[in-house]
């Protein structure tokens, strides 16, 4: 009776992808209804009779039978997928055509098609990520809103609009003959990167949600790697950076549930399996001349994993990697992280100078860790009052209880001058 915790959600994505392929993308809503139907059935039947031996297959078969009903019922009044066209018209070809669509390899391709289709150029990056999470990962609008700490109304609007764009796109993205495959692939990689980041750095207070978002991003990135045309060095680098970051997730919260910065995590709790997988993918990403931001970010994460304790970190290499990253994709957050690395290498005063030199730092005022970095540097320079003011600003824009607790502790540290000198991160200065 052991049932994967998120089985329904994961199967929802696979089922919608396959049904949309059969019904046509303009019938996305119909596909969603059929999926909903299959879950209602599973809920009703399983609760009395227990979970079947192969729950995924049961759900897929239910969806397939329901799809056949719909196709027979509506084939004279509705247009289905033009690619399958005539096959769906006659009873002789209908069943084998639908059966074929439910073969495992076909379902996997459908997931990929849907992944590429969700990253439609008419959609903003935020909308692409929300739509992917909703359609491919089976998150309800409420669950997506929860993950992004957005209101239900705002998320509903965003997803509804995105679905309309998708439904009007006439057909699903052609992953085999699509001429713009190489154009769309970076958008897909970017969406998966943002999805992962939302889980890793996002505002959602629940660590469970964070882990799930990271897990979903990693699962989809894995699908991308399995499809040869999509398994480019950048795709491997993306997978590497996800693994190397995810490896640290178990140590981000200590036993009392408090947030731990990279500097004082219990590194023995890092997931060695994920580190190894990250390293393997990083090696694979090195084929070819292309250097993407994913390569550089993965390399930074990898350097961190090679240090047994924070004091052993090779900050020199990390600073130079941040320089590369700034050249590829400049952003105030990257500049801030670079400043933190410089502070670790050259001392807090240099860190402060670097932060003050960030060109568009105005965009960081709502980012709590911007103020926290300033607070950290000031504290290490011995200016407790100033440090406390920065941490208070961080507290004011903190996004959840864990962040608030973290900043409250740091404010407390400013009031106890002696402790700051034992802070692990200044041991190597």
């Amino acid at each position, binding site marked *: 009776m052991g049932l994967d915790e998120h089985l329904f959600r994961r199967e929802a994505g696979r089922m919608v992808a396959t049904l949309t392929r059969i019904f046509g993308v303009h019938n996305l809503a119909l596909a969603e209804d059929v999926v909903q139907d299959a879950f209602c059935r*599973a809920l009703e039947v399983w609760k009395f009779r227990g979970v079947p031996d192969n729950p995924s297959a049961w759900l897929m078969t239910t969806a397939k039978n329901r799809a056949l009903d719909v196709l027979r019922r509506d084939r004279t009044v509705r247009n289905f997928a033009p690619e399958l066209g005539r096959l769906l018209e006659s009873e002789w070809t209908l069943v084998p055509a639908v059966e074929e669509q439910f073969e495992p390899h076909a379902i996997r391709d459908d997931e990929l098609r849907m992944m590429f289709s969700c990253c439609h150029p008419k959609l903003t990056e935020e909308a692409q990520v929300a739509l992917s999470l909703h359609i491919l990962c089976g998150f309800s609008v409420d669950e997506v809103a929860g993950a992004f700490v957005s209101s239900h109304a705002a998320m509903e609007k965003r997803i509804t609009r995105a679905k309309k764009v998708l439904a009007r796109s006439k057909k699903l993205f052609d992953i085999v003959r699509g001429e713009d495959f190489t154009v769309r692939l970076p958008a897909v990689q970017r969406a998966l990167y943002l999805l992962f980041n939302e889980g890793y750095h996002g505002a959602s207070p629940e660590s469970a949600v964070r882990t799930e978002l990271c897990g979903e991003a990693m699962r989809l990135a894995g699908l991308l790697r399995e499809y040869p045309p999509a398994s480019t060095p950048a795709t491997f680098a993306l997978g590497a950076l996800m693994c190397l970051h995810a490896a640290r997730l178990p140590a981000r919260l200590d036993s009392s549930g408090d947030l731990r910065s990279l500097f004082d995590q219990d590194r023995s709790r890092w997931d060695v399996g994920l580190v190894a997988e990250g390293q393997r993918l990083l090696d694979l990403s090195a084929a070819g001349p292309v250097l993407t931001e994913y390569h550089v970010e993965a390399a930074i994460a990898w350097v961190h994993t090679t240090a047994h304790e924070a004091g052993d970190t090779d900050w020199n290499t990390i600073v130079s990697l941040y320089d590369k990253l700034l050249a590829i994709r400049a952003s105030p957050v990257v500049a801030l992280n670079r400043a933190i690395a410089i502070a670790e290498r050259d001392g807090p005063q240099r860190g402060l100078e670097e932060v003050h030199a960030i060109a568009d730092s105005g965009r960081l005022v709502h980012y709590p860790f911007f103020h926290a970095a300033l607070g950290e540097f000031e504290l290490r320079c011995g200016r407790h009052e100033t440090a406390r003011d920065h941490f208070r600003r961080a507290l004011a824009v903190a996004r959840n209880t864990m962040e608030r607790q973290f900043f409250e502790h740091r404010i407390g540290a400013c009031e106890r001058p002696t402790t700051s000198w034992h802070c692990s991160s200044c041991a190597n200065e």
Partner: protein
Amino acid sequence: MSEFVFLYRGGEGGRSPERAQQTMQKWMAWLKDLGAKGHIKDQGQPLERSGKLVKGKQKIVTDGPFAEAKDVVGGYTLIEARDLAQAVELSKGCPIFEVDGAVEVRPVMKMNV
């Protein structure tokens, strides 16, 4: 011990996959617990929400559903309990209440009253 039937009414509807799975797991846990405590005579069956209604001397056949969605019986379980009060108490653990459903608790008539 006396026998009772739990009729599960309504409680279906738009749920996310995650919620549907959680609801199902709660149902299974609840029924399992009732069984472990010796209250289940027959776990019962789910019922399709649609069917036919045959009515009157003319035996006129019409299509279901026969009630509003919120009142349709979606399944039943045969329960053993000391008395009606205990059966009602047992029904209160049913996850159907989380989705606005209802449990109808009906004593099974005995031969010797």
